[in-house]
């Protein structure tokens, strides 16, 4: 079979792969947002900036120290996590319990500062960042073109998402997190160090964003505003999945990437807005999102 609904198979499969590849970033980022929102009740507007930070740290460490991609994939997200620890302890901590607007404004402000600094230091032009040598090839399977790096990103993102899901849904640490999401003061009164849990959760969400940033660096341009372009779509993904739903964030991330990819085949003009159109429809029929619990 070389065609499906009049569309050549290689075109279709190429867009499916591209859709899943974009979906991998949506999933990693919306997962972090959902975890942070679930526990901290903070809408983390700095998420796109943390993603960009991951890419820039990888770029710089690659330039200065010549670290290989595999090392950058570990070191850069950890450094983003360290930054997030400081940010949570110095700033975010003070807005807990206040109107959610404060958290939103604070993280938005931090995002502007981070992006402004990146722009000041590196200008607006994108920085080149090459793929790891080992993954630069392409395979052909049954007429399908499979760029190795894209397949790698999809698989790694999927494993990371499922691992995070298992950590939250299946371990005692995850049970602390879920319980604290329901009733933070009580979990604390039972003897769990909730302030540390909050810091760790924010850092973990940021680490996921930084990780996505490093994986995006070879494909998207490394630039100060690479995150702010992406994060708008990711917020739509989170809204569609349902705020605070872990599985929902992962599933809707990949699904919406896929929808976008397929729209490019069927009606390319709509590809840029399809996510927002879906968001509008979902909000109309299910205001709490596809996987969210009705309030």
């Amino acid at each position, binding site marked *: 079979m070389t065609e499906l609904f009049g569309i050549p198979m290689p075109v279709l499969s190429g867009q499916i792969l591209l859709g899943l590849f974009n979906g991998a970033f949506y999933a990693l980022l919306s997962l972090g947002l959902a975890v942070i929102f679930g526990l901290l009740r903070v809408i983390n507007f700095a998420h796109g900036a943390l993603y960009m930070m991951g890419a820039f740290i990888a770029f710089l460490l690659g330039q200065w120290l010549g670290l290989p991609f595999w090392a950058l994939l570990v070191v850069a997200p950890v450094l983003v996590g360290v930054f997030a620890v400081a940010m949570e302890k110095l700033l975010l901590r003070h807005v807990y319990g206040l109107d959610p607007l404060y958290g939103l404004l604070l993280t938005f402000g931090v995002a502007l500062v981070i992006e402004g600094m990146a722009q000041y230091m590196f200008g607006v032009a994108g920085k080149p960042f090459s793929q790891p040598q080992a993954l630069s090839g392409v395979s052909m399977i049954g007429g399908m073109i499979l760029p190795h790096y894209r397949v790698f990103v999809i698989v790694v993102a999927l494993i990371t998402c499922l691992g995070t899901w298992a950590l939250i849904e299946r371990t005692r640490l995850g049970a602390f997190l879920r319980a604290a999401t*329901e009733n933070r003061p009580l979990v604390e009164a*039972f*003897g769990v160090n909730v302030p540390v849990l909050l810091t760790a959760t924010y850092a973990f969400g940021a680490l996921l964003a930084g990780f996505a940033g490093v994986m995006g660096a070879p494909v998207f341009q490394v630039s100060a505003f690479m995150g702010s372009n992406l994060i708008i779509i990711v917020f739509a993904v989170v809204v569609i999945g349902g705020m605070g739903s872990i599985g929902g964030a992962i599933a809707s991330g990949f699904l919406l990437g896929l929808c976008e990819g397929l729209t490019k085949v069927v009606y390319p003009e709509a590809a840029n807005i399809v996510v927002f159109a879906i968001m509008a429809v979902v909000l109309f029929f299910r205001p709490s999102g596809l996987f969210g619990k009705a309030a």
Partner: protein
Amino acid sequence: MTEPILQIENLHGWYDESHVLHGVTLEARRGETVALIGRNGAGKTSTLRAAMNLLGRREGSIRVNGRETIGMPRHKVAYTGLGYVPEERGIFASLSVQENLMLLPSIGENGMSVARIYEIFPNLRERRRAAAGTLSGGEQQMLAMARVLRTGPQLLLLDEPTEGLAPVIVKAIGSLLAQLKADGMTMLLVEQNFHFARRLADRFYLIENGRITDHFDREGLEAHADRVADVVGV
């Protein structure tokens, strides 16, 4: 034997701006069951919440096992030996029964084993994989008690453990508490159900408008019958 395990002195407490505890003073000695009795809104729950550092602001002194807990971070208070069973049960609805049971960190040596807990509460064993939010009111109360017994507390703070429950379950809870008492557990019991409290308690405190207005032991019960009737409306 007579050193108080819980000693609350001149405790004041606030929710935001509203001052609800106006100098509560009470104590519980090791092995004692103490009942705190008062009308709706008198400050019973607030007193227990203050002991767990769950009130907005507190002043005065709360000593548990000789350690001052005012000024202690909230997540450290339980380790002085407190097991808290809140009025609203505080079950984590999205967690399974078993996860609720295993969630709380151990705070003492003599925690009840899970096997023993399931022996006492066969319902919880049967429903251990169910979301705790699907339990009946009685089962949630059992779970709220079971999970703190697992942690090995020296002092139980029980806020209306029989509220809204069917008579058979009230009876079951009564015999469990009697057993715990016989084993030497110290308990501070808040109860509206005075008939339930009088069977368990060694001493009684009356609380009105955030103040302790009377206290007496079992022998003094008759003499204070009018005061008690006035406060609990029997």
